[in-house]
């Protein structure tokens, strides 16, 4: 009863914030470049209120709090000195997310205590930022819920996330080319069909210098990641060679993984050109189908 009264007493902005935060789709490369959304960028009455969640903003203007990621968990450690504190690395085609789950995330902690590395997992969590000193920033996810999923779901997540990122890239380039700033830019973008939240995010993001290099790298890794997706085995000669390299990796690697140099020697001996082995390995790494447990060792997922 008390709670309902409170809701009625809240002004419009805060009322909306009580709704569930949308779980944003974002690749690791864009995620790790996120920075804290300064409270001053929002209205005073919101900033005064401690209930307002902490938001991060990506270089492309995505404002986020909750995220939904699907990828391969490649490392999992209990780093807690007293009680549990799980630290996990979840790899997507562009990089890796660092995820934490402690005693206040019981559901995620129980999940991490049972999951076997490596595995495809889906996870929701809140983005956290930690800046021990100026210039060194750590962006991570505090896990809420997680589950083991199959490769089909992982592929679909990559395509969904690529679509939303490419939409964002398009809106961002449009904003950059328009020459507008601030409020004018916001209105321009909304006019162009961009959601009001992204329009606000982009107008904030554009106030900082945006590295063209970052955008280029992001585009390249999305492109690579999409090409690496494996639907029903793929098509053509490249797919055959890929299949062969994969089989060989299975044969040689077993459950422990294989030394990359040894693997390369063996593959070349069986008639696969060196650059093909290199490319396939890179694609497999980017696609999350294999990973490096130690430098120089590659191992298949699953």
């Amino acid at each position: 009863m008390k709670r309902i009264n409170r809701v009625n007493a809240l002004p419009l902005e805060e009322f909306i914030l009580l709704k569930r935060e949308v779980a944003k789709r974002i690749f690791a490369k864009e995620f790790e470049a996120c920075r804290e959304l300064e409270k001053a960028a929002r209205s005073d009455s919101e900033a005064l209120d401690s209930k307002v969640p902490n938001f991060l903003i990506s270089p492309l203007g995505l404002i986020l709090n909750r995220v939904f990621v699907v990828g391969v968990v490649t490392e999992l450690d209990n780093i807690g000195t007293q009680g549990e504190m799980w630290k996990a690395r979840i790899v997507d085609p562009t990089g890796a997310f660092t995820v934490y789950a402690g005693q206040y995330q019981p559901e995620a902690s129980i999940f991490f205590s049972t999951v076997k590395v490596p595995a495809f997992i889906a996870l929701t969590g809140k983005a956290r930022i930690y800046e021990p000193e100026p210039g060194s920033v750590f962006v991570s996810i505090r896990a809420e819920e997680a589950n083991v999923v199959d490769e089909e779901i992982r592929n679909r997540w990559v395509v969904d996330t690529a679509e939303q990122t490419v939409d964002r890239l398009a809106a961002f380039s449009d904003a950059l080319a328009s020459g507008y700033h601030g409020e004018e830019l916001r209105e321009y973008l909304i006019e162009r069909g961009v959601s009001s939240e992204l329009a606000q995010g982009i107008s904030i993001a554009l106030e900082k210098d945006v590295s063209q290099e970052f955008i280029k790298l992001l585009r390249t890794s999305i492109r690579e990641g999409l090409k690496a997706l494996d639907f029903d085995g793929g098509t053509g000669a490249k797919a055959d060679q890929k299949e062969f390299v994969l089989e060989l990796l299975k044969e040689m690697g077993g459950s422990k993984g294989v030394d990359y140099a040894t693997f390369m020697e063996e593959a070349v001996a069986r008639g696969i050109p060196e650059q093909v082995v290199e490319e396939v390995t890179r694609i497999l790494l980017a696609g999350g189908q294999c990973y490096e447990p130690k430098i120089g060792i590659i191992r298949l997922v699953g």
Partner: protein
Amino acid sequence: MDEKIAPHLEELTRALGDLEKTGIRAEFEKLIAFRVPPDVAKETILRKFGGKRKVLKIKDLSANLKNFELTGRILDLGEKPIRPQEGTNKGSSRLYTGVLADETGSVLFSSWKELPGSVGDVINIKNAYTRVWQNRIRLSIGEQSLVSKEPDSTLPSLSELSGSQTKKLIDIGAMDFSVNTVACVIQFSHREVLVKGRQSRVISGVLADETGRLPFTAWVELPGIDIGSIIRIEGAQIRMFKGMPSVNILNSTKVSQVGPEEAKNLAFTFESAVKDPAPIKIEDINSRESMFDVAAAGNVVSVRPGSGIISRCPECGRVIQKGNCRVHGKVEGIRDMRIKAILDDGTGSMSVMFPRELAEIVYGKTLEEAEQLMFSDVSKDAVYEDLRRFLTGRYLAVRGNASKSEYGISFVAEKAWIPEDDLAVRVVELLRRLGPDEENKQGECSSTGGIYLA
């Protein structure tokens, strides 16, 4: 004391305008009387009345908004005396009620003070708020609202506003009383209902155009009209039912069939209107008060508590706890299964309710199989835990009705399936949008060369 509060009052006047007229000063002094420190009282008042005052159009109104500004033309105005409550020494007061309209819609209002205008005049209201009353949003003008007459307004004239507005189905909402529309009948059936103790026959069905669908009810016969008819409806009444607008065809409503020549110019045909709705972004569902018969797809990001096996009261169907119904007391519960899950597509999220038939399909277990699990496990949440393990992260597409509540969108699913769109096609389109890669150009040349040679 006055010296201490004077600067705060000055600041409030700068921020909020005339404090006396709006009663804000009285509110401030009340806080002071309750020993609230003046600077805290100032903050409180600023938070309540100040900040960004939003200027809204009538179509933007939703339940429980506060502190906004609105301009509209009075379409209708009446007053009724309110008897004073017993035990209070207040004299009798008057409540002014009527209808206010702008170019986006019209809304019922009630005012506790006399308005500075009458039917046909345009008024501007600052610090208005909304309440839900009898299933409809009502604009409230309180003691602290500032109402002024706007003699030179560009709002449409009284006759334009009071006539029925012609609208597409998607634009029809709680703010409409009477509308005109052209739509196709895609469902049509007769049913018997009890109205004021009398059995009467009504027609109910579904209308569709290129923008969406809405249910309709006809309280009169519709000769010659059936599934597939494209009809023009003039002066239909909009009523709200379970948060969903419904088109009501009454005696006063004109219904005519659209001829084949005119139908050619419409943006829809029976074939296109009757097609299953394609999934839309959850963001688009979030932005509306309600949507009838829409589809969306996303990930199950959370399975909510209360999912799994539940007990219902045999009398009223309410969910019961520990064998006790809130209304009927101790009852022998009937077991049922349901799933409440958060579906999120990255643009928006909504709470989706899967009733038993769908829950069984989505879960892949029948109620009986789930019961087995419940009895074989010591944990009372065995089914819920199993559901979470099974569903969290999965892709689902749903079709059903969405309506907005205080905590966001609730969606009642009528169909659910696993989306099977072709990822390879989407990847090709994405690669095209990303453009060619510099280092890949060479690769592309050689592959073209290969085709040429072949």
